[in-house]
C-alpha cells in the first residue's frame, strides 16, 4: 500500500502591493487592481482578501475590510477588486491612486465548488454581490459551460459588472427595483422559465437574502445545486476570532459557522 501525502493547504500571506489602477465606475463603485505575488494570484472564485484600507480625514478604523476577488489577471500578475463605497474603509480605498501601496491578506476562505459535468450555470447577484460572482463566469466559460448572469440593482444603470460579464461570454440580464423586475415575484417566474426551457445545473447567488431564499426554493423543487456567498462583518478573516459566525441548519440542527473560514461560500440548503 502506498502512503498518500496529505494535501498541503495553500499558503496565505499579508503583502504590500502596488496599485495599478483605481477606476471610478458608475455610482458608488470602484474597480481596483494591484500587482500581487503568486500566492495571492492563486485565489479562486469566491475567495476573498482582507484589505488594510487607509484612513481618510476623520476616519480612524482599525480593522481590515473583506473584499472578494473580482478578477485574477495572470498575464499581468494583477489582482482586481470591485467595491462599493459604503463607509470608512471603502472611502479610504477609493482614495488610492496608481503607485500607492495597499496591504492585502489572503487568499482567504472557501470559494465556489464547480462540477466539471455542469453545462449551464446561473449567477444571480444583487448590487456589489455580482463582484463576488463574476470570476465564476470566466472560470465556467473556460470550462465550456454556458453562463447566464442576472444582475439585480436599484436602477438599471447601477448594475455591476455587466460589460465585464458580456465580454467574458456570459448572457447578461439586468433586473431592477425601478421597474419592479428585481422583485422576487417577477424574478421567480423568469428563473423557472430558464430552468424548464434551458436546463440549469447550478445557481450561485450573492448580495441578497431574498435571492438566497429564491435559489433555495428552486433547489428544493428542481434539485438544482446552489451555493451562496455570504457576508458578515469580520475581524481576523482566518477563523481565529469567531466574530463572523452565522446560524446554519445542518441535519435539522442549528449550528454556527464562521463566514471567513467555513465560507464565505456555502451550500444553499444549509444557509439560513
Amino acid at each position, binding site marked *: 500500500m502506498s502512503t498518500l501525502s496529505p494535501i498541503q493547504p495553500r499558503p496565505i500571506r499579508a503583502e504590500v502591493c502596488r496599485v495599478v489602477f483605481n477606476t471610478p465606475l458608475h455610482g458608488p463603485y470602484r474597480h481596483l487592481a494591484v500587482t500581487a505575488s503568486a500566492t495571492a494570484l492563486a485565489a479562486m472564485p469566491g475567495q476573498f482578501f482582507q484589505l*488594510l484600507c487607509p484612513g481618510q480625514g476623520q476616519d480612524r478604523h482599525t480593522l481590515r475590510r473583506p473584499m472578494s476577488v473580482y478578477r485574477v489577471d495572470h498575464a499581468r500578475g494583477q489582482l482586481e477588486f470591485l467595491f462599493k463605497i459604503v463607509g470608512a474603509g471603502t472611502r479610504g480605498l477609493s482614495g488610492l491612486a496608481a503607485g500607492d501601496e495597499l496591504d492585502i491578506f489572503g487568499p482567504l476562505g472557501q470559494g465556489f465548488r464547480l462540477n466539471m459535468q455542469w453545462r449551464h450555470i446561473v449567477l444571480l447577484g444583487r448590487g456589489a454581490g455580482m463582484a463576488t460572482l463574476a470570476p465564476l463566469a470566466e472560470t465556467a466559460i473556460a470550462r465550456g459551460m454556458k453562463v447566464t448572469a442576472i444582475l439585480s440593482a436599484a436602477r438599471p444603470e447601477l448594475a455591476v459588472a455587466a460589460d465585464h460579464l458580456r465580454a467574458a461570454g456570459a448572457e447578461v440580464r439586468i433586473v431592477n427595483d425601478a421597474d419592479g423586475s428585481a422583485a422576487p415575484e417577477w424574478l421567480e417566474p423568469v428563473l423557472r422559465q430558464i430552468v424548464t426551457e434551458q436546463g440549469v445545473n447550478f445557481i450561485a447567488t450573492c448580495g441578497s437574502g431574498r435571492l438566497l431564499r429564491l435559489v433555495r426554493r428552486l433547489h428544493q423543487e428542481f434539485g438544482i445545486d446552489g451555493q451562496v456567498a455570504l457576508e458578515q462583518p469580520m*475581524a481576523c478573516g*482566518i477563523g481565529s*476570532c469567531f466574530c463572523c459566525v*452565522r446560524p446554519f441548519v445542518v441535519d435539522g440542527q442549528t449550528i454556527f459557522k464562521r463566514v471567513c473560514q467555513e465560507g464565505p461560500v456555502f451550500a444553499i440548503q444549509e444557509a439560513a
Partner: protein
Amino acid sequence: MIDLTVRIGSLILENPVMPGSGTFAEGMERVIDVDRLGAIVAKTITPDIRHGNPQPRLTEVVGGMLSSIGIPSKGPDYFCAETVPFYARFKPPLIASISASSVEAFGKLAARLNTPGIAAIEVNLSCPNLEVNGRAFAMFPEATRDAIRHIKESTDRPVWAKLTPNVGDITEIAVAAHEGGADALVVANALLGMAIDVTTFRPKLGNVMGGVTGAAMKPVILRMVYQCAQAVPLPIIGCGGISSINDAVEYMLAGATAVQVGTANFIHPTTMIDIIDALPEFLRRHGLTRVTDLIGTMRANEAADPSWAAVG
C-alpha cells in the same frame, strides 16, 4: 549570542512572545512559522458546548475593537481529540485556556486536561461565577483564590491565572491568585465597554456590552502589569494592546516576563514574528544579552523629560 529564553515557573519558553487566547487558531500555520512562537495559547474552552453570543459580535472603536464573542466552545472532548493533536506537530508548548461557571467545574475541566501535549493551563477568570453572583471570578479575591486552589489540586500542570481589568484594585486579585497557588499571572483580559449607534439608538453589540481590546488599551493594562509586578513574586505575562517591539519591551520594563499579542494579530498577522525578529537587535542596541535583562528595569525614579524640567 542573544538569549531570548524566559522562564514561566517550571516552563522554559524559547522567547517571550505568544498569542492571546482567542486571537489565534488552526490556520495561522498557513501564514506564519508557528514553530517560532514562544508558546501557543489555545482559545478558551468550557466544560459544555456553547454557541456564544448573538450578533453583532464586533464593532470598532478608536484605536481598537469592541467584541462580545461569548466563548463559543466545542468542549473538552473535541479539544483533546482534535486541537491538542493538531498542535502536537509544532515545537512551542501548548497552553490550554479554560473557563467554567463554578469552582467545582473549573477543577473537573482542569483534571480532564491532564493529557500529554498540554504544557500549562491558563485560567480565564473573566467568566461569570454562576454559584455566587454571576460576576467574573477575577472581580473578587475569594473567588479567584478558591478557583485557582481547586484547579491546582486537580492538575499537575502549571496554572496561569488570567485576570480581568474590570476591577478597582487589581493587586488584590493578583495576591489572591498567588495565594491560591498560581504559577503565573496573565494581565489582562479585555476591558468592558459598549457602543451605541446614534442613527438607530441601538447598541452596536448584540450583547450590549463587550470587551475593548487593541492599542487603545495599552496604557491601562501596562499600569496593571506594573502594579501586579510590585505586589506578587510571580512571573507576569502582559497582554493588552501590544502591536510592536516597542510595546512588548514596554511591558517587560514594567515587570512582565513574557507578552501575549491579541487584536494586533487580526490587523498584521505577522506581528508576533515581527516582534521576535526585532528583539535581538533591540537588546544589542541597548548593550543587553538576555531578554530577561529587561524585566522590571524601568528607571522609575528618573521620569520626566529633561527639556520639560528645564522649562519648569
